[in-house]
């Protein structure tokens, strides 16, 4: 499951599951002493409950040299070579040439470009943003329009690519210093900052234009606003105030709202509810994740709740887990889903709330990890259940609803 989850990355608007792919690696890297920094005499303990006592076993060193046999000449030669290498004459030269090989020419190769741009735009994350926008589109109570759906998805995807590229453009020195992000294209010099900005512009402008002209102006405006919010508010705020988490949650909530407005053309209560669900989900997801990254945040100068206000961090996560239950109950009230939705979703909402409570109470790495990984499957499952419980248009017509009302009257006229 964790392997599968590793591919599951959140949108830049949802923002933080991008840590996922590296999260496990980060934890496993922590098991090894850091080799690329000044050697510390102390290593952070992995166990939070008690300090482990490590028992060292001294293995007797067996003699290197074997007694000479009939094929000893060859062995002797090998041993002599080995001795010479251990002697150190060859080692500094090999170390130097190894370093030389690590120097790369900063020349852009066209066949590398698609891969580089995919990583620059955080393509997996973008795919997830598009998924949440599609969920918003699918939940809207209107007949499904394929063209509109495709245009909205493409526009949202392009906007997300643009936002991610600008984010990476701003954060090069910080990304270099965090394990999770140190292999990004701008950090490695695979692409110049100018090219990154041009790419962002060539995604963002057509993306927003497509949304504004091909879908509707409201969706275009939301897309443009979200790019602005992510690149100009959230990204700088990460280093200024813990309020960045709330701004980031809004960034994550907007794509489903965009999907809804793309389908209906208006900002209904349903759109806000979907946005609200995504907004609340961000907190258990990100707060749990950030619990394990406190050292990197502290060193890199990132202002995160987990570092400065740990109690608040856990309270907010729990609060929003419980809020998800409430929001799921509001869905049938707004006629978006049937009443089966809050009932079917109750087990998973209760489970994530339980894990949120454990995280609140225990405040340790194992509870934070459990909550984080739960959030990864909780969201897609919730959206799937929501879609399957969607109130169909037919049901609404039978109720004599506004959408169905006209149809009913038309049918009466047709009957003899």
């Amino acid at each position: 499951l964790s392997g599968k989850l590793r591919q599951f990355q959140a949108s830049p608007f949802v923002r933080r599951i991008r840590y996922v792919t590296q999260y496990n690696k980060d934890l496993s890297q922590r098991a090894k002493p850091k080799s690329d920094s000044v050697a510390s005499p102390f290593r952070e303990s992995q166990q939070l409950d008690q300090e482990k006592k490590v028992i060292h076993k001294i293995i007797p060193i067996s003699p290197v040299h074997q007694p000479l046999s009939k094929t000893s000449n060859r062995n002797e030669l090998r041993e002599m070579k080995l001795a010479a290498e251990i002697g150190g004459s060859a080692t500094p030269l090999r170390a130097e040439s190894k370093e030389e090989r690590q120097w790369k020419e900063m020349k852009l190769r066209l066949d590398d470009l698609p891969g580089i741009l995919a990583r620059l735009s955080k393509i997996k994350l973008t795919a997830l943003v598009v998924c949440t926008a599609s969920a918003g589109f699918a939940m809207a109570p209107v007949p499904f329009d394929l063209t509109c759906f495709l245009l909205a998805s493409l526009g949202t995807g392009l906007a997300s690519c643009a936002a991610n590229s600008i984010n990476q453009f701003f954060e090069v020195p910080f990304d270099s210093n965090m394990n999770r992000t140190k292999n990004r294209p701008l950090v490695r010099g695979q692409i110049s900052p100018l090219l990154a900005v041009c790419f962002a512009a060539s995604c963002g402008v057509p993306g927003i234009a497509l949304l504004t002209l091909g879908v509707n102006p409201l969706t275009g405006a939301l897309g443009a606003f979200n790019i602005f919010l992510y690149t100009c508010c959230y990204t700088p705020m990460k280093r200024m105030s813990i309020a960045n988490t709330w701004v980031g949650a809004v960034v994550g909530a907007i794509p489903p709202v965009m999907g809804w407005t793309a389908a209906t053309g208006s900002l209904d209560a349903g759109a806000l509810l979907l946005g609200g669900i995504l907004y609340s989900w961000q907190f258990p997801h990100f707060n749990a994740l950030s619990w394990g990254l406190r050292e990197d945040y502290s060193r890199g100068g990132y202002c995160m709740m987990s570092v400065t206000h740990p109690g608040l961090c856990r309270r907010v996560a729990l609060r929003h887990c419980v809020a998800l239950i409430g929001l799921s109950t509001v869905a049938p009230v707004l006629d978006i889903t049937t009443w089966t939705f809050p009932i079917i979703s109750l087990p998973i909402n209760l489970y994530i709330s339980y894990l949120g409570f454990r995280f609140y109470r225990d405040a340790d790495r194992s509870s934070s990890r459990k909550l984080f990984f739960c959030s990864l499957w909780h969201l897609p499952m919730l959206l799937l259940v929501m879609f399957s419980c969607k109130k169909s248009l037919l049901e609404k017509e039978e109720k004599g609803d506004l959408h169905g009302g006209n149809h009913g009257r038309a049918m009466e006229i047709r009957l003899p």
Partner: protein
Amino acid sequence: PPGCPGGAWGKMLPRLERGEPAAPEPSLKSHGQAPGGPAFRPPAHSRHDWIGPPDRLSNLRPVIFHVPQDESALERRLREARQDTQAWNQQFWAQQNASFQQEKEEFIYSRLKAKGLAVRDETGQKATLNAEEMADFYKDFLSKNFRKHMRYNRDWYKRNFTITFLMGQVALVRALRWLRWKKKNVGD
């Protein structure tokens, strides 16, 4: 040895501390390198910049800039801006990471002492603090360095925009030059 700046930029640091600018020696023709700088020399025929492995202290990758024969004033301004920013970034992060490591160790030592625990236990294993105990240190370090980070952020954004803007100008000039050359050749 620990504490000694390693990697390709190690030898650059003392020069910066002496207040000297990180300018390349004019005698090195194709690539701008500081004397006593990185051991790596890009091949002379290369007309591109070269980027190296992350520095051990700052985690930033050093770049050796290519100095073309016909470098214009604008191109020189760009290269110097990039070199200056690189050196400035290197100094900031090397110092930041080093002080983080040092303060972290001091914190661990003082906490262990307060708990009455020895630095090493009977088997010779170094004692450690768990993540919850370290949390106090992380919070403290972040708040202590807050203003420094604010200043760094502001300067970094300014430098990043300046460099990218200069890159844009250079690219534009080169494109126009190429267009003019093409037009001239087609005309002939």
